[in-house]
């Protein structure tokens, strides 16, 4: 296909790209499997005006602050902390028993079993099995968790340890295997 030794990098790149752009066909049943999962999940509900406002308030934003404004803000925060300390006020924290149901999901069509391990069950592989929620390998389990940050992973077929593909990876791992992080709401 390339006879000359001095073909440019551009030529090679273009020819490789042209080959790789060819269509790739996966299992035709993929669409049906996806829709089986989707219909097994809770239906989305229209968000009312209050919900839209709440969503807008929760959305992260980037603020541009000048150094002078930053100093003024820091001074303001320091003043608030001083006043709070002076008058003995403390931040309100949620009660320890206030648990939130957290759903863990993994798509593993070829798995025979999936277990959830993490800080919340002392990394015990037999404590929290996932169940198949639909045909095609969607595994799910819901665990009530108190506010906090937890590390966790899945154990597939009793031996393969894998992190949650949809969650942030844990920054370091003393166990030698990758794990993920979930943060449950509250004052963290």
């Amino acid at each position: 296909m390339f006879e000359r030794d001095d073909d440019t990098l551009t030529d090679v790149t273009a020819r490789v790209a042209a080959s790789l752009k060819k269509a790739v066909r996966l299992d035709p049943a993929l669409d049906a499997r996806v829709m089986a999962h989707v219909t097994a999940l809770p239906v989305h509900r229209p968000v009312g005006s209050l919900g839209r406002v709440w969503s807008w308030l929760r959305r992260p934003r980037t603020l541009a602050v000048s150094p002078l404004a930053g100093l003024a803000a820091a001074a303001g925060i320091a003043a608030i902390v001083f006043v709070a300390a002076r008058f003995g006020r403390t931040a309100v924290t949620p009660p320890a028993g206030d648990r939130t149901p957290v759903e863990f999901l993994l798509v593993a069509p070829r798995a025979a079993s999936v277990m959830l391990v993490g800080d919340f069950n002392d990394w015990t592989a037999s404590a929290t099995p996932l169940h198949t929620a639909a045909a095609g390998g969607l595994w799910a389990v819901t665990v009530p968790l108190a506010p906090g940050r937890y590390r966790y992973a899945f154990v597939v077929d009793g031996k393969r340890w894998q992190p949650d593909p949809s969650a942030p990876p844990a920054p370091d791992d003393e166990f030698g295997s990758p794990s993920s992080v979930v943060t449950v709401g509250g004052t963290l």
Partner: protein
Amino acid sequence: MGIGEGMSKDADLVRRVLAGDAAAYGGLVAHYRDRLARYAVRMLGDRGDAEEAVQDAFVRAYRSLPRCDDPQRFGPWLFGILVNRCRTSYARRARRERVVLHDEPASLVAAVASTAERLEWEAEIVWALERLDPLYREAFLLRHVEDLSYDEMATLTGAGVSALKMRVLRACERLRVLLKETDRV
């Protein structure tokens, strides 16, 4: 962006799904399935892993749909989920044996000599692609196969534009060297 032709139709389908019409999601799956399949197969080099990644990306996108801030940008948003999913999948199966893929039915292979030669060339490209560092392969595929701009790639990957340009350049150079080893360049 290369991903997301038919943005207004996407936006309409997204709004219908968010209004409770789960079946409308089928339109989005049908629209993006082939595009996602191509990237996943090229990136992972294994059809089974690619299917799992694509299926997972679609399901996760459905669950997270209320967080898709701009329904007209559903395509790029979905693709970003797949790119991250492929990164995780690749890391997980890095120790497994890889499978060289041919996309043509076997019955076509021996029919014409030129076809056989073309398939050989395609197999060599797959062979070379799999020997790239995953970050280089990802950058090459997004830039030269999915035709994304560097700004779009930066949004999807979280990497800087200059770093992405360097990855693409390194990928092109490495591909040329690898294909030269097979006497095809």
